[in-house]
């Protein structure tokens, strides 16, 4: 019962925050709305007893991606100014698609056997430990685990190559006078 009320409250908060994220014309405020939605997502993961996903959600999405978005906004010109129309030309079509999706989802959920709220979570409460074991087990996911590391390495080198202008930076750049003071 407690979980039900937390779910209702968090969902309501997420919908409101999502509205802020898409309607607020101040990009920083829109980002804060997005962060609130992501945090609500983490709470929903906790309610589903998917604790590892909740932690990953907070660490990756709130801890890193939200920071990337904020920095991307901060290095853009005219941050606070609202420019251009707030509505896209095809907003009516977007309403139709979103409404259709919502009706379809509601229909599907209403006919879902577990919709009476009596179903138990299919997630094993020990599943973070199981995941940890499976990640390094030879008959588990040890190859994907190590390949993920190689994938991250490729992303890291690619990011450095692209962001540092495709050349290896040697030594500090000459500083501009305004930066020297700080």
């Amino acid at each position, binding site marked *: 019962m*407690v*979980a039900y009320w*937390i779910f209702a409250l968090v969902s309501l908060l997420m919908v409101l925050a999502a509205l802020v994220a898409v309607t607020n014309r101040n990009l920083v405020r829109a980002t804060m709305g997005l962060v609130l939605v992501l945090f609500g997502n983490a709470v929903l993961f*906790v*309610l589903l*007893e998917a604790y*590892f996903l909740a*932690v*990953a959600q907070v*660490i*990756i999405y709130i*801890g*890193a*991606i939200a*920071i*990337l978005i904020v*920095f*991307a906004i*901060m*290095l*853009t*010109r005219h*941050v*606070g100014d609202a420019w251009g129309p707030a509505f896209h030309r095809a907003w009516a079509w977007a309403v139709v698609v979103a409404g259709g999706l919502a009706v379809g989802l509601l229909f599907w959920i209403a006919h879902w056997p577990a919709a009476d709220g009596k179903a138990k979570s299919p997630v094993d*409460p020990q599943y*973070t*430990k199981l*995941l*940890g*074991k499976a*990640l*390094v087990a030879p008959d588990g996911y*040890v190859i994907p*685990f*190590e390949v*993920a*590391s*190689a994938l*991250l*390495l490729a*992303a*890291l*080198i690619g*990011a*450095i190559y692209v*962001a*540092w202008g495709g050349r*290896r*930076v*040697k*030594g*500090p*750049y000459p*500083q501009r006078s305004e*930066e020297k003071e700080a």
Partner: protein
Amino acid sequence: MLWQYVPIAIMLVLSMGLAALIVALGHLVGPSRPTHRKMIPYESGMVPIGPGMRRQPIRFYRIAMLFLLFDIEVVFLLPWAVVSRKLGLFGFIEALIFIAILLVGYLYAWKGGALEWE
């Protein structure tokens, strides 16, 4: 299961409540005699120049991008860390390989000067 999160909820409520309380108290108790000079943004006592939000250098973004990748590494190590003691030497070596592969990228970033605060 959900009761484990009560301390976190209490901490959230306390920290947000304390922040709200301090701001509210400042408004209620403190005298308010605003002048133009008091209302301008504080910039170390100097007269502020230019807009409040200036474009930040892109190096913040680049460092954040590197941080994101190592953040994902941490998430991968998290489930391993929960059971690391039970996994013994084999699991430890596998995690070491995982870290070693990414260490190459770290060294690349270091040697290339990506970690320099230009």
